[in-house]
């Protein structure tokens, strides 16, 4: 009996998790010409950010506050991270730190629209 309840509980948790994933936004940030593009995005909590390296040189993504750091991304490799928020996440390329970007997680839940901007701050 207890085994059955545990299994049901796991199933419920899985269901919720999957449903949540299905509903969450995904926002892609391309790394091109040593620039994060868009350099600044406004996203809703729970959004998954996917960085894609489109350069012929490897890059890596690291949060200024050291809360995360990707492995090195060679050409066309990706790194994704789901942001909880609300708050602002500043990040940079740990190989080329002049490359910077910002994720603003709005509690109001804007629709993940990116705005382009200059890479440097």
């Amino acid at each position, binding site marked *: 009996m207890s085994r059955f309840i545990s299994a049901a509980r796991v199933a419920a948790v899985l269901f919720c998790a999957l449903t949540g994933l299905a509903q969450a936004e995904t926002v892609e940030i391309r790394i091109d*010409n*040593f620039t994060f593009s868009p350099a600044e995005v406004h996203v809703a909590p729970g959004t998954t950010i996917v960085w894609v390296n489109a*350069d012929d040189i490897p890059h890596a993504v690291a949060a200024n506050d050291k809360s995360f750091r990707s492995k090195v991304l060679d050409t066309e490799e990706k790194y994704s991270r789901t942001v909880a928020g609300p708050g602002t996440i500043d990040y*940079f390329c740990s190989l080329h730190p002049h490359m910077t970007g910002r994720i603003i997680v709005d509690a109001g839940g804007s629709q993940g629209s990116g705005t382009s901007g200059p890479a440097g701050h």
Partner: protein
Amino acid sequence: MAHQPSLPADEIDAGRRGALKCMAWAGTGLVWSVAGGVPLTAGLIGGGAQAAPAATKTTAPAQAGLTFVQISDSHVGFDKPANPDALATLREAVAGVRSLPTKPAFVIHTGDISHLSRDEQFDAADQALKDLGVPVFFVPGEHDVLDDGMGAAYLARYGTGPNGRALGAGWYSFDHGGVHFVALVNVVNLKGGGLGNLGEDQLAWLAGDLRALSASTPVVVFAHIPLWTVYPEWGWGTDDGARALGLLARFGSVTVLNGHIHQILQKVEGSVAFHTARSTAFPQPSPGSAPSPGPMKLPADKLRGALGVTTVTYRQKAGPLAVVDATLG
């Protein structure tokens, strides 16, 4: 690069000991004389033994004090269109060094040995460099500290330095032929929005390392990212590089050798001569001349003309060191 006129020798040397007299640039064919730091010349690489080295072949053996070679940015593992086989061009560079008329005392590698810090890339680079037949002293580039340990793999391999005394992220110093060599690391603990970084610990060590030296000691400093600000928009500089240069200001002869930017740039400020080396893997555009500093794709028959190594000769009596760049083809 400005073409600078020659100056009378007495004007060049005024007030400076061991002043730099001449830097000859094989790749560009540019030869110029300046006041300042140290350098004057020697051989080359590959089949492209061009103009400048020919002159040095006649003078270097007679006067040579200390000759060493700088190899940089070999990026072993790089296989993109700009150079599908970076290991092959490193091997060509090594063969070129072996054919120099003056055997170098040692080789310095100013970083980006590997492209992605992978063991097999370091292994292949080490195997190729072993053929040099002389000691090789390293500093890491940002491509050499990409392992999970953020540089642990580099330190495990190269962290002892020439004296078994590399410190921190791999910095060290040594003396050879009357010249004090300082190897600095400016590719770790980088901060968002910043440039290369030496850090407080390394600067404190450098101050102590230099303290006992007399001001007449020639000093050669090498690090991966340029210690001077070349082009901050592309990250080509070191945030606290000026502090290191401040510690070197009292010396009559300072030569700063860097890599990272895959092209020759140089300048002389006071008694400090700055020089960046070509890569053995692929060229990068000149500052601001392209949308980004990404690898420059050249026609296959032009690639080796944009790659190369640097030979440096220090002549104790004559004063000048010589810095010469040579292409692979």
